[in-house]
């Protein structure tokens, strides 16, 4: 990767803001879906699709492309919005999310939409699938890198740890995972529902290289991936500490926004239901204005 300029960092943040606005609009239109995760991961998606990934949006099946596997499929609004901004399909299509006949399924389907590398939703099997792609890459002596974006909650699935064990054993240096450590899941905070810590020590014990970053700092995201790409003989886990609901003040760090869209129900402490979408979009637009 080439060194990132201040101009580029600014541009990545701007795109992330636009992605967040689209996520809010899509969810409001769909009247169902997840809010907190997509908003929390918008910066990481922006960094990947507009800086890190070697990809060709107009040739989604280009064999040399880096693979990005989204393991926790429920945050797909951020994937869809990012793919549209990157040019995989028209942004007009975003408003069809979760509707009959749409290519934007409620959880992503590989055969449905260009740019989607796998079908996901049921948690805990994305890392395994990314491993399969990394193994294929090694067999073919291909240069592509495989990235797997995962949630923290899915580390309660046994399959995740089966995959972690396998990747460590097989020294899959062409595999990098990014763990969205936002500390919430549907039923509450992860450490209340089923404690996950110490995540770093667990991955290190499984023979992974581990980097911890602020998942909203673009320089950190980019340098962590650059570091992962030069680590040989080991897969890398980037534990990205993120704020769920990032950018919409009434959603930030509140697990109640994990699985609901804005504008559907009253949540104590949040604006009234009829105002939720408007407030969210105004906050995001204001942030964008300030950054110019």
């Amino acid at each position, binding site marked *: 990767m080439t060194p990132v300029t201040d101009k580029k960092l600014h541009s990545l943040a701007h795109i992330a803001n636009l992605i967040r606005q689209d996520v809010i609009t899509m969810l409001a239109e769909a009247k169902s879906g997840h809010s907190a995760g997509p908003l929390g991961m918008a910066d990481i998606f922006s960094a990947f699709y507009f800086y890190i990934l070697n990809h060709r949006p107009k040739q989604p099946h280009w064999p040399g492309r880096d693979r990005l596997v989204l393991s926790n499929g429920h945050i797909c609004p951020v994937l869809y919005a990012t793919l549209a901004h990157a040019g995989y399909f028209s942004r007009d299509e975003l408003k069809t999310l979760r509707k009959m006949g749409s290519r934007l399924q409620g959880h992503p389907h590989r055969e449905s939409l260009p740019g989607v590398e796998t079908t996901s939703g049921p948690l805990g099997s994305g890392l*395994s*699938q990314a*491993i399969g*792609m990394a193994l294929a890459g090694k067999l*073919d002596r291909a240069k592509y890198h495989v990235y797997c974006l995962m949630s923290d909650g899915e580390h309660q699935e046994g399959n995740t740890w089966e995959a972690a064990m396998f990747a460590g054993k097989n020294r899959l240096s062409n595999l990098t995972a990014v763990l969205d450590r936002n500390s919430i899941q549907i039923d509450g905070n992860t450490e209340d529902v089923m404690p996950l810590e110490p995540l770093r020590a667990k991955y290190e014990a499984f023979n992974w290289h581990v980097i911890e970053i602020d998942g909203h700092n673009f320089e950190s995201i980019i340098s962590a991936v650059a570091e992962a790409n030069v680590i040989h003989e080991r897969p890398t886990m980037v534990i990205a500490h993120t704020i769920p609901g990032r950018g919409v003040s009434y959603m930030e760090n509140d697990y109640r926004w994990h699985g609901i869209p804005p504008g559907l129900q009253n949540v104590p402490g949040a604006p009234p239901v009829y105002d939720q979408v408007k407030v969210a979009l105004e906050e995001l637009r204001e942030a964008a204005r300030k950054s110019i």
Partner: protein
Amino acid sequence: MITKDLQLNPKLFKDDVEQKATREGFGAGVLLAGEENENVVVLSADLTDSTKCGEFAKKFPGRFFQVGVAEQNMAAIASGLGVSGKIPYIASYATFSPGRNWEQIRTTISYNNSNVKIAGHHAGISVGPDGATHQAVEDIATMRVMANMTVMVPCDAAQAKKATLAASHIWGPVYLRYAREKSVVMTTESTPFTPGKAQIFWESRRPKVALIGCGGLLYNALLAARELEKEGMETVVVNCHTIKPLDDEKLIALIKKAGAVVTVEEHQVTGGLGGAIAELTAKHCPVPMEFIGMQGVYGESGPASALIEKYGMGVKSIIAAAKKAAKRSKR
């Protein structure tokens, strides 16, 4: 009488007829597939020798992946390989794969339409002494119900080899079912095999019942047909090695001609071959049916042959079912 054009084993009813486990056919077939196509890879979940992957592992060590006792991981890794140009075969006991990892197969292989071949070994009650935990009698049902999935149950080791190789030529998810115990090799190297094409192994001119079976248990159907002929009752015996997609045209024609059906499988009588044939007859040619298989119970430890008898899959049970079905058809 035995069908001539399929070049079945000439020693079929001799005491010294060759016996071989269908899992041996898998071992030979997957090796052939690997020789034929360098994209074929094999994944094993700590059961390499008993699922007969050893030869492949030895010949192609770089294309063999040991995943340990982790069937869910094995299925989802295979999914990633399958969408990346590889043709992965995943091998374990059927109670674990496709048992333990059913959801990974559904989401990441079947719905995701990845080019994965699932080899379910030690299927059926003939697993024997290991007991009911290791006797898969639900796998045909749980795989058949999935969209995109092809389901094959080869009748013997020779056919297992052909079916295993043929699976690598089918684009998309395939489930293949194999047994642990030796069973009679009914076919020969020369017997043709085409996925989706049912084979008539025994046919009399005026059959009163069609015995439709799959797997090694089909031999008991042939023995039953021979006995029934001696008693003056004509039958037709069909090797329905592909349960999905069924050979609708051929099956409907012969079911209409016979007027009654007995299905024969080492599987629960609900949801498997019997279920598939019942769906077909209900839609196209309703006739009386009887079902040979596990009658809604689990098996137990014991010798394979004794278990087959005890759970109503022996030759006598098939004969009784054939007579009952024929009587109900009132032809």
